[in-house]
């Protein structure tokens, strides 16, 4: 077990409003070959945490305090030049919307090849065969390298995004709700693909979702976030079977189960507020 990523006491605020804690004192670690899921609702700070790891926070936000260690180096305070060597090379990222994160006027083959040229200086035939290999790995016929994004289905576009993100064989993959926009059958395929690639390439995966069903399928460890703070974290079995925090229980209760046995219960925020006070 080697530790790949360690986040310590991460706090993010708007620059204009340093008292407003969007992410508050968040700490967790990720090991090589393991998947950690960050679970939470919109606004819980889960995406901001991931963006901070990539050094992609918007200009309006600041890392107020805390450290992000990746392979033992502090990347929270790394320069843009240093970050550019890490992003795409050491850390790959997949976003939620495969429709909007691909460039519509470039072929998918070109877009997959971009980071290979940038980081590994591959060109010509070597580049072409590497792109073909990547497409094959994500289950797309290599001859589709010349296709444009609009010629592919939603699931295929997400596969292209995955091919791009793993092109340089990164040590870590960050996936921000990669299946939310997809059909349930396609979602199952993409989750399986990500899990297989993680195992085959021995990557660490940071997976962001609001769906505990997805967590159950893919996670080794879970971090539950609520209003910028971690309310509970631990191995997936423990958190799902024996949730300790009332918010985790509430979030689990509002996910419909496939057997229809469990009554639906929306989150009672007033009760949570009273409990937290």
């Amino acid at each position, binding site marked *: 077990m080697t530790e790949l990523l360690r986040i310590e006491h991460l706090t993010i605020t708007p620059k204009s409003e340093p008292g407003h804690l969007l992410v508050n004192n968040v700490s967790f670690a990720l090991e090589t070959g393991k998947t950690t899921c960050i679970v939470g*609702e*919109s606004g819980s700070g889960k995406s901001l945490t991931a963006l901070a790891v990539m050094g992609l926070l918007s200009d309006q936000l600041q890392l107020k305090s805390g450290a992000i260690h990746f392979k033992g180096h502090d990347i929270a305070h790394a320069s843009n030049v240093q970050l550019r060597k890490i992003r795409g090379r050491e850390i790959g990222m997949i976003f939620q919307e495969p429709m909007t994160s691909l460039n519509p006027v470039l072929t998918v083959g070109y877009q997959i090849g971009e980071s290979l040229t940038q980081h590994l200086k591959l060109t010509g035939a070597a580049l072409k065969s590497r792109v073909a290999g990547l497409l094959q790995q994500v289950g797309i016929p290599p001859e589709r390298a010349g296709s444009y994004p609009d010629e592919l289905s*939603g699931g295929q576009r997400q596969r292209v995004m995955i091919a791009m993100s793993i092109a340089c064989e990164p040590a870590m993959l960050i996936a921000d709700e990669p299946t939310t926009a997809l*059909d*349930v*059958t*396609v*979602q*199952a395929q993409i*989750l399986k693909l990500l899990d297989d690639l993680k195992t085959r390439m021995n990557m660490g995966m940071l997976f962001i979702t*609001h*769906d*505990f*069903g*997805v*967590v*159950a*399928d893919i996670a080794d460890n879970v971090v539950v976030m609520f209003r910028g703070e971690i309310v509970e974290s631990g191995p997936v079995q423990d958190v799902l079977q024996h949730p300790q925090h009332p918010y985790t229980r*509430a*979030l689990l*209760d*509002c*996910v*419909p*189960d*496939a*057997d*229809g046995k469990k009554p*639906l*219960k*929306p*989150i009672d925020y007033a009760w949570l507020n009273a409990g937290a006070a």
Partner: protein
Amino acid sequence: MSVTSENNILVASHLNKTYTQRSGRFGFGSSKTKALDDVSISLRAGSTLAVVGESGSGKSTLARCLLQLQPLDSGEVIFQGKNLAGLSGHDLRQERRHLQMIFQDPFASLNPRMKVREIVAEGLVIHEVGTASEQQDKVARMLERVGLSTADMNKYPHQFSGGQRQRIGIARALVLQPKVVVCDEPVSALDVSIQAQILLLLQSLQQEMDLSYIFISHDLRVVRHIADDIAVMYKGRIVEQGKVEEVYAAPTQDYTRNLLNSIPGRKSQAA
């Protein structure tokens, strides 16, 4: 189909709809897509019929064709003894009052330049229900019923969250006291926690107002909770239909089995 007709509020039989698409070089060619291929469904009064399938299976086309928002190529939709497919103009508008729709995207389906009171009252105005002050009363009561306040009446859609906007969409659809409501993926754009609130709201409104729902969805966990009957669509055809418990317990078609096996979290539950 083996369903008896007296209990059914809406019966659609042998619906067909084909889209013609331009294709080929410069779009000179054309290709046809069968969006609905001999589709028959019936909705029992007071119950919820879920129509499930993946994108492109024709489920949203079915929703739109049932309400005659899109013309059918052939087939009939019988509602209260009348064939909606044969009606037009004034007669169709009369019936539409009883048939309403809740849309998927709470951001795109509300006019950003109208106040909430105008959005919700529009149906009442069009159908000339009561005086202006009666209409405002109805709007206020409906908004309270869906969990908003009368103070919200003078706000614009952008001042609300996604879940609240979906509540406005529900108020807009229900203010005319319709009999049949078509819900086209009403919770798929919402967070799980908000989703649970909206589903429970739809269920309690159904009981209170004696509504019949056609519930379009691709989320089989949601369908299990809200629906009584299910119709599974694939490539424009209904491949399986029946009671929800029965179909989930013993699906007869490979496609349905594949859909059920794709539900996240199932794998680990079984283990």
